[in-house]
């Protein structure tokens, strides 16, 4: 959401990324860029390495070789929480909420990197801490409102219907004020109606100036919403281009039809 002028180079640049788990070469020499302000999709069959790539971008584990550059900074030596404060947020393929906490509290945890109060500050609870807490709650409510869940703020997150849990996760990610948001199969488990709403929500998020990189299996949603698509297969990049280009690519057709 912070715009620091145009980047000629991509906001996110993956350069010759490699990652193996034992004998499994999950990501092979993948390179691509994500331009600021777009919705970009990452597609490919199960096991293609999409989630692994997300984990590499968010710093869950290090690259074997290659570079990931975000906002002109190499992310190789950064801790996860550094990357979050630099502006990378994510959601998980299997929704990961703090189930026993309220919906509002979940989003407040999303504000962690944008707030400061530490151990002693929490105990002393001086006026600046109180002010920060109040503002944090307002912001969290704003994001809940944004995803249409303000009415459920005080419900336990684990008690919500699945589709709503997805929205809480998105609100929580937005709360960290990202510049780049990674969504791992956000439409999985949603019905047609919810999927449509999700598409609208993603456009609204992009209109806030947040760049989106999503993994998605729902092809009609992907083709409709994505400005650009990268196709992975067995860890390697198979194709890249606009939805139209990718759909017409022989290699992609072959991979998807299993030929």
């Amino acid at each position, binding site marked *: 959401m912070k715009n620091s002028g145009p980047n000629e180079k991509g906001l996110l640049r993956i350069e010759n990324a490699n990652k193996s788990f034992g004998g499994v070469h999950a990501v092979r020499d993948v390179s691509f860029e994500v331009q600021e302000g777009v919705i970009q999709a990452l597609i490919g069959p199960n096991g293609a390495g999409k989630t692994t790539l997300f984990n590499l971008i968010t710093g869950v584990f290090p690259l074997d070789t290659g570079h990931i550059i975000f906002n002109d900074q190499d992310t190789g030596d950064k801790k996860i929480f550094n990357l979050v404060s630099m502006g990378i*947020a994510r959601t998980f393929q299997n929704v*990961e*909420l*703090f189930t026993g906490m309220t919906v509002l509290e979940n989003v407040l945890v999303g504000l962690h990197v944008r707030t400061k109060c530490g151990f002693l500050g929490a105990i002393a609870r001086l006026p600046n801490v109180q002010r920060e807490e109040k503002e944090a709650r307002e912001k969290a409510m704003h994001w809940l409102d944004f995803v249409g869940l303000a009415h459920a703020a005080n419900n336990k997150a684990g008690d919500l219907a699945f589709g709503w849990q997805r929205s809480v996760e998105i609100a929580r990610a937005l709360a960290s004020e990202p510049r780049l948001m990674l969504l791992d199969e956000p439409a999985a488990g949603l019905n047609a109606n919810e999927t449509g709403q999700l598409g609208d929500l993603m456009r609204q998020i992009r209109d806030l100036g947040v760049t989106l990189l999503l993994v998605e299996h729902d092809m009609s949603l992907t083709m409709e919403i994505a400005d650009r698509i990268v196709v992975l297969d067995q860890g390697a990049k198979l194709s890249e281009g606009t939805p139209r280009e990718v759909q017409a690519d022989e290699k992609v057709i072959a991979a998807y039809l299993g030929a």
Partner: protein
Amino acid sequence: MVFTLFAAVIICTGAALEGDYYHEQLLTFIGIFTLLAVGLNMLMGYAGQISLGHAAFYGIGAYTTGALTVHLQWSPWASLPCALIMAGVIAYIVGKPTLKLSGYYLGMGTLGFGMIMHVLFREWTTITGGPNGLVGIPSLSLWGLDLSTGRNYLYVVWGCVLLTFFICDRLVNSRVGRALRAIHYSEQAASAVGVDTAKAKLQVFVFSAVVAALAGFLYAHMVMFISPGTFTFLASVKLVAMVVIGGMASIWGALLGATFLTLLPEHLSVFADYEMIIYGGILMGVMIFLPQGLTRGVLDIYEKFRAKRKGTVED
């Protein structure tokens, strides 16, 4: 406010017990165990990390103040900060490597640490007095006021409990407390939203160790004699049982658990013989049937029951 009410209850109880030495002392012990339980609860109940060696920090608090006051004739008020800092620093050293990893490494680490400390208390005779214990620890007094009488000491201990409750309550309802609870529910997600999970866990571990050392300090200057038998693995398990019974993630539950497990052996003499088995049984039962602890578990059942009666189902 609930804390004012709590303070009033303590003062009235203290006044009502005037002269009843046995009950004054019992209540003081309950206070000391409540301190231990509420500190450990911050670690277990909120952050979801288990310590199986918490009696060691209790012992570090007691032995630090004991050694400084007995061997070096320090004033207890000078040894108090040393006892707290000692426990904090040691907790930091133990926690730093183990808390980087998620899972049960802290449990394993603290288990071993507790055993080592127990051996140290028993064998480092020049400092600790060895198996015979350390004798001659002074009682507390402040500006000429003798704090060692039954009622005064009860007030001192419960004053500390109240203060610790207050601090824990503020911590829990803050950015820090939310991060800790988040770690409990999903360490992966907590770290993905930018919580420095290793740091948060280490902080709360150090905090719980410092509270345990405060309890150790109060214990040492109450009984004026300490021996290794108080700070054993069994004592650590008993503390875990208090937290679990009291309902994890509930400050007042710690009070309940500590009270229950302090009174039980008093009123049930067979208890002493089967202590270990009973604690083990309680722990297993609660973990299997009510993983959130007794108070929370009962509350959950009640909420479910009420929701069913109202027929309200989300969405």
